[in-house]
């Protein structure tokens, strides 16, 4: 599988990453090597096999919808890089 810098640009946008040019060139080569190796899976015929997301038959775990106290806002905001007294602050996004 050929990986181009355009493909890396595209997944970088989706990932909210913006690699510097030289880092991008190196990453493109490494990803191509890794993805090419993964193509070994194509050798295996899996047309009749259901994709397996969970290994054990645990399904639909329900709980009662009870109101419980949430964490203190002041405590949570202590970890924010730029908070005020009641919110996370970010650059203005809507004019």
């Amino acid at each position, binding site marked *: 599988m050929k990986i181009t810098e355009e493909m890396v640009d595209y997944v970088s946008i989706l*990932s909210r990453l913006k690699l510097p040019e030289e880092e991008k060139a190196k990453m493109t080569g490494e*990803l191509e090597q890794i993805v090419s190796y993964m193509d*070994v*899976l194509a050798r*295996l015929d*899996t047309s009749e096999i259901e994709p397996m997301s969970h290994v054990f038959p645990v399904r639909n775990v329900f709980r009662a919808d009870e109101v419980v106290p949430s*964490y203190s806002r002041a405590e949570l905001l202590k970890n*924010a890089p730029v908070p005020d007294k009641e919110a996370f602050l970010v650059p203005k996004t809507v004019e």
Partner: protein
Amino acid sequence: MELMELTALELGAAIKKGEVSVPEATRAALNRVSEANPENNAFITVTAEAAMARAEELQKGVKDASAPLYGVPMALKDNICTKGVKTSCASKILGDFAPVYDATLVEKLEQGGNVLLGKLNMDEFAMGSTSETSYYGPVKNPWATDHVPGGSSGGAAAAVAAGECWYAVGSDTGGSIRQPASYCGVTGMKPTYGTVSRYGLIAYASSLDQMGPLARTAADCAAVLDAVTGKDKRDGTSLGGTYGSLLAALDGKVKGMKIGIPDDCFGDGLDAEVSQAVLAVAEVLRARGAQVEHFALPVMEYVVPTYYIIAAAEASSNLSRFDGVKYGWRAEGYEDLTDLYNKTRTEGFGAEVKRRILLGTFVLSTGYYDAYYKKALQVKAVIKKAYDEAFSNYDLILTPVAPTTAPRLGESLSDPLKMYLSDIYTVPLNLAGLPGLSMPCGLDQNGMPIGAQLIGPALGEQKVLNAAHAFQMDTDFHKMAPKGGTAQ
């Protein structure tokens, strides 16, 4: 009595008998940490004051204590949430993040009377096989400081090996407990998926992540697992009521046990010294009455690509929460919100984490989803079936943990694919959800530890621990301690 040479259970018994106090044990461990940490960098955070205060408090309750590890000092990998104590995942992006809650595992350990010494270094976000990708600098192997301790729970393995704590808890997504345990000559176990609640474990790949112990012996691992397993309503994938006390049922009986050796795990790429030492484990168990047979497990060539596709896909989703807004570190000099995200994530994540996020985003993207992600989930079913079939014939499977002993520092990061390939023997257990234990079984010609892996069927922890205990009753490999310095 050399305190730091005791096993966790021996120390627990000595505390109960009053031969040593909890503060004495804690002080001894903290002294050892101050000595060893400048050498091996196993700890990111040492909570000395809180540990001594906790030790004093626990000492008052010794008489009434019943937990076998009551008062025994230990440490946690730094991706396990501890209330009010910095939890960094060894990443710049989390800054000085201090969680507002404890992981369920941390609450359970506290109920059992643990003393927390601090938080352990690791590969950034548990992504790596060497513990060199940490923002806080690489961990060094106590057996030879020019070698890596393995990863990603390298700090946990190094701390136990260097005698800085009696046990540690790490996490294992593709071998991150077992492989460093192997490289550092300690015993480590990844239990069956779902046996330990993941609530409060910062997620890497949620369908594969599982926490477990690293300690000196299989018996210590059993005692830790007894304390931390169980159903948790805060983790929908946790299982409950699966088995009784692993420690109480630990008898080392392997008579009649059928042990399978997959020839596909002993082929090309496996170091001859490692192969020899692992096969010798089978002979020890055979002498105790186990039956040993060789068999074919023809899925090994698929396990690494399947693992890295699934793990990277889940990582790309899990790590989207790190955005410089809610917690942790934020970059400077951004123009707008998107630029804030881009700059924070590009500067806040290291190269290996970015590689896996990009890879995961790629395999989930339109046009490639079916060929990679969906395909990997299908192959996962094939791999699971191969193990199910093997366990219809055998009680346990014996393999190496890693193809070689610990590589030198700096040798692995230049070739990521080569590093991924070294995970071949450990990743299939995470894909199939199975329990696996790594235990020391020899030294190579450079004096570096070799590990053997015992694999059980789902919820077969007791069988795995019994076989490991039997091996440790008859051999002294688990008693070897590093002499330090550089490799011979």
